[in-house]
């Protein structure tokens, strides 16, 4: 057994002839919360999709709890403890809130599912009140809670979240940030992708900065948040973000 619950080594991925990830290393320890930040188009979504298997890794390896899952189909990785809250939430809008949650618990025993449901309703009381409502009729923030709760129903070892605060009103962003903070410190490790670095750095202890398909910086969140170069060049927080970056071309195929 390795010390990592999730371990990606030299992972590359491509869309047609264009390589979007050029060999990424990312490791997550049990129960740890890490964040993956980077400008729009850096490859964050692609990396998460590659980890769960929605995009095939063209090079490198992915290990989950020590198993090499690089060639496993999406559903098998999910059953082995990997959960993704996808970009844009993707709730089953025609299903009730409760049915969405139950799908998340699919494959677990009856008692475990019942207990998980109680847990999720505890965490998100608004979902308990709306359990019979169509998920599609909920507000964006509530749908995000459905998506997170649905992923938690599987009691995953690793929970990947792709921009969970995107498109939400500021007050709801604060609420979701609190929810994510509340998820840390338990059994489930978290990989949080955020363009909102405020949220990212509050939730995670450790961070990766992804730029054009390569990890550019990694370290404690405390160091990353004060690193002026990170702030300026990689997170697009100042006017310098408009300048061309002194980095390898995204089309470079061999590292």
């Amino acid at each position, binding site marked *: 057994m390795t010390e990592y619950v999730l371990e990606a080594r030299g992972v590359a991925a491509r869309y047609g002839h264009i390589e979007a990830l050029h060999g990424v290393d990312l490791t997550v320890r049990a129960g740890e919360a890490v964040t993956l930040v980077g400008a729009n188009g850096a490859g964050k979504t692609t990396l998460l999709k590659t980890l*769960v298997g*929605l995009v095939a890794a063209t090079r490198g390896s992915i290990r989950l709890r020590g198993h090499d899952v690089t060639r496993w*189909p*999406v*559903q098998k990785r*999910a*059953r082995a403890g990997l*959960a*993704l809250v*996808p970009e844009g939430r*993707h709730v*089953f*809008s*025609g*299903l009730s809130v409760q*049915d969405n949650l*139950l*799908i*998340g618990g*699919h*494959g677990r025993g009856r008692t475990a599912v019942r207990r998980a449901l109680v847990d999720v309703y505890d965490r998100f009381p608004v979902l308990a009140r709306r359990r019979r409502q169509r998920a599609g009729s909920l507000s964006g923030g509530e749908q995000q809670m459905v998506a997170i709760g*649905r992923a938690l129903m*599987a009691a995953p070892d690793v929970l990947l979240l792709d921009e969970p605060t995107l498109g939400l009103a500021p007050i709801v962003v604060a609420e979701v940030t609190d929810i994510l903070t509340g998820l840390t410190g338990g059994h489930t490790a978290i990989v949080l992708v955020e363009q909102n670095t405020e949220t990212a750095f509050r939730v995670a202890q450790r961070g990766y900065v992804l730029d054009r398909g390569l990890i550019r910086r990694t370290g404690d969140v405390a160091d990353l948040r004060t690193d002026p170069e990170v702030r300026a060049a990689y997170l697009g927080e100042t006017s310098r973000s408009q300048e061309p970056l002194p980095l390898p071309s995204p089309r470079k195929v061999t590292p």
Partner: protein
Amino acid sequence: MSPLVDFTVAGLAAGTTYALVGVGIALVHQVTGIINFAQGEFVMLGALLYALGCEGGLPVSLAISLAVTGTVAAGVAMQVLIIAPARAAGPDRLIMLTIGASILVQGLCLTAFGADQHFAPPFSGESRVQFLTTSFSTQYVWCAVLTAGAVAGLWLLLNRTSWGRMLRATAMDRDTARLMGVSPQAMSLLAFLLAAALAAAAGIVLAPLQPPDATIGVALGLKGFTAAVIGGLGSLFGAVVGGLVVGLVEAGVTGYLSSGYRDVIVFAVLLLTLMLRPHGLLRRSGS
């Protein structure tokens, strides 16, 4: 005898068959993205097995079991042996394979059972139902009852069981369902199995009304497809309505024009629907 009542009753009866075929096509399409043009052949198989069972002296319950088991086995075999191995080709190309499967099923049935018609007695013998000034065979009532029962059973399965929940989730968003651990292959198999069971039900009620032979599947499949398209290919309820519409149009044309125009008019309806309301008659266009 009132011809209007006769045509309506006969049209609705044929329509229930098309409805069940259409529901099967819509279900498979929703879950897998594939249009299964072999669906009509499964109705043929169900009808033929039922009639053969009756001719062979089996009691009705055993003849029904034979038809359902045989048809479901054929549906599962098609998914396992033809659809699943080729799934990497994607739904568009798999549609061609379903046409191949349809020819294969028909060929096997012709070889095994010959081209002759086979006969099954009505469920309740020759009894008739009195309606206004006319009367019609009780078999038409069975038709309505069994179709309603099959559709209700499917509805309950989809809405009240965890398998149904997974099927619906897969139909709505396949990749997200996979992220929850739901296997699309398992769902595809389940959809083909359920569609075959619906086809068997359709064949069993059809057999006493229209003695089946090994060649009736093609027309049934195309009319069921028309029913599903009228319903928008997405809605099971829409496919039921579509099936009844096709049955009524067909009966009306047969009664008031000539049976020679029957199929032409039905396919004109299909063509017009595809051209003018590609999302079905019941759906808002453009959605």
